């Protein structure tokens, strides 16, 4: 059954290209001569953002970025692009994206263990010399335990998340905070070593209070981290306009105070779910229009001894061609109208075919009798049901996808999977078709790939500087880029006007004048 469907798919494509006048018979198995294989069955989904569809290499530049994360001095733009180009060919899954979080994890573990170490070390080393410490110490123990628990939970909630992007430069706030934590803990250890460990301090209560103060300080640093990393950028301050260079799709977003690199990550998050997928096939004017523009200019003069007469003649030809060129807008208009009409026709056929196909199956409820001896009915699972009804609509679907240039995005396998999904969830034909009638966001076509997407941030300012008015940066991918322009949101002066609810009174305002 599957083979039959695949054959049908390939033959639909082939037939469409060859010959439109043949009668549309669906019985393809009777034709013997079509042995051309066009697509391997079950071909995985094309990376929707690549134009190199034919010579596609799976080990293609997907992962992390560019510059070594340890240098602080600036790397110029050319270096960035050069290094990125080198990296695109080689793609092992980089461990570099985990260095930052690993470092942060170690530091926070160290910071969390320190208060416990402060408490435990005197007990271990000079237990008998310590002053006994009764109820106040126990109170401090309890509060210490709870504060550590809160620190642990909030660190887990806030910071222990898999990183979503690697940035080209240091993330300034995060580095600042890590340095702060390190300095704090180091200075506490220093003080502890000099004042407690060396002279073997006997006042245990003081030591416990010291450890408690460290935990308080860590809590405050965590508050600072919360504000700097999570809260500061929530209040909107700038409006970003994002335009895709190839087809002009644009969107406006409101962001808060961010650095350029963080704003870039933010924009890319939104790009994957807001922008329609990049389709390179939809970009060019039809060749018929462009070629007519060009024909007037093919004037070669091969003879070196041409007289003035022929140059004058060629000039006249060019002038005539320039005048003739004015009709191309006319052709463009009619070509567009024709294309629209064709798409609508194909769409109508597709919708009817799908509706009809969906009427062929129905869901079997548990209490219905599956089969009786007189009318045996085959009970199918969703996959088989999908394959059964796919055959009548395959041709219409193939033609529609070709007309709208979407066929690289949808392989037969993906359509069958989607059909199976829709049948399982009791969707109507219209819900099934929603995925094909409008080009969806890029997210819809992404494979779940652990390797990530490679983007290059191109900017004239250093990427850790904050957003400000008039800044322009762009995010480049292989064959298109997104240009981002920053404008500040206007300052709003909100005034107040109080209206007494009793002040709403009305009179008739009539001064009619009638002619008699």
């Amino acid at each position, binding site marked *: 059954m599957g083979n039959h469907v695949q054959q049908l798919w390939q033959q639909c494509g082939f037939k469409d290209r060859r010959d439109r006048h043949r009668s549309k018979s669906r019985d393809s198995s009777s034709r013997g001569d079509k042995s051309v294989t066009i697509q391997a069955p079950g071909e995985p989904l094309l990376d929707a953002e690549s134009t190199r569809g034919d010579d596609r290499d799976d080990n293609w530049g997907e992962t992390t970025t560019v510059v070594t994360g340890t240098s602080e001095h600036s790397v110029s733009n050319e270096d960035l692009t050069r290094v990125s180009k080198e990296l695109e060919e080689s793609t092992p899954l980089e461990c570099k994206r985990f260095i930052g979080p690993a470092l942060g994890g170690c530091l926070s573990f160290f910071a969390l263990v320190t208060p416990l170490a402060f408490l435990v070390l005197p007990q271990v080393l000079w237990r008998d010399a310590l002053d006994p410490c009764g109820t106040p110490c126990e109170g401090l123990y309890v509060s210490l335990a709870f504060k550590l628990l809160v620190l642990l939970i909030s660190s887990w909630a806030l910071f222990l998340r898999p990183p979503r992007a690697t940035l080209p430069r240091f993330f300034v706030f995060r580095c600042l905070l890590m340095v702060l934590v390190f300095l704090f803990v180091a200075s506490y250890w220093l003080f502890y070593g000099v004042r407690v460990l060396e002279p073997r301090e006997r006042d245990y209560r003081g030591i416990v209070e010291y450890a408690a103060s460290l935990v308080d300080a860590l809590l405050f640093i965590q508050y600072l981290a919360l504000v700097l990393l999570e809260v500061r950028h929530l209040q909107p301050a700038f409006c970003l306009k994002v335009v895709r260079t190839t087809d002009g799709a644009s969107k406006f977003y409101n962001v808060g105070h961010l650095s350029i690199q963080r704003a870039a990550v933010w924009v890319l998050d939104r790009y994957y779910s807001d922008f329609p997928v990049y389709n390179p096939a939809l970009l060019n004017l039809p060749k018929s229009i462009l070629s007519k523009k060009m024909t007037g200019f093919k004037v070669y003069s091969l003879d070196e001894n041409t007289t003035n007469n022929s140059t004058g003649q060629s000039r006249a030809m060019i002038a005539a061609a320039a005048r003739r060129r004015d009709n191309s807008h006319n052709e463009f208009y009619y070509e567009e109208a024709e294309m629209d009409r064709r798409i609508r026709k194909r769409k109508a056929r597709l919708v009817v075919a799908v509706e009809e196909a969906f009427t062929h199956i129905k869901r079997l409820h548990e209490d219905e009798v599956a089969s009786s001896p007189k009318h045996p009915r085959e009970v199918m699972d969703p996959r088989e049901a999908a394959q059964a009804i796919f055959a009548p609509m395959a041709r219409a679907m193939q033609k529609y996808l070709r007309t709208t240039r979407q066929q690289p995005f949808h392989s037969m396998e993906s359509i069958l999977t989607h059909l199976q999904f829709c049948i399982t969830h009791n969707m109507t034909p219209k819900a099934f078709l929603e995925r094909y009638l409008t080009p969806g966001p890029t997210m819809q076509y992404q494979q779940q790939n652990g390797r990530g997407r490679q983007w290059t941030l191109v900017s004239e300012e250093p990427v850790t500087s904050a957003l400000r008015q008039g800044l322009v940066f762009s995010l480049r991918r292989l064959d298109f880029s997104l240009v981002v322009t920053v404008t500040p949101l206007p300052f709003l002066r909100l005034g107040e006007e109080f209206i007494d609810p009793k002040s709403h009174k009305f*009179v*008739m*305002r*009539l*001064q*009619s*004048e*009638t*002619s*008699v």
Partner: protein
Amino acid sequence: MSFVPGQPVTAVVQRIEIQKLRQNDHLILGFSIGGGIDQDPGQNPFSEDKTDKGIYVTRVSEGGPAELAGLQIGDKIMQVNGWDMTMVTHDQARKRLTKKNEQVVRLLVTRKSLEDAVRHSMSNYPK
């Protein structure tokens, strides 16, 4: 021309008889009215007392039957064919004036200059 509620209204009036003119199967009189008890009396430019809700002549068309009969702009209409016009709505006034089966309307109108003329003549007459 103000009145005290509950007391009879007294005014010096002029009798004006207007012949209706036929124009494209309408019978027109050639003037416009304004005012009425359902209208805003403060907007009346012709009344002395701004609480007066009577019917006033707001426009007289040139060469029309009203002008020929001597109606002037700013006149207050007191009666039309015997019907009172001092306490009517605007629409009732219009209907009283535009009855299709009447060819002639006899109005009683009053204006300030009439009052003044009478008072002037009365003051000149010592007895």
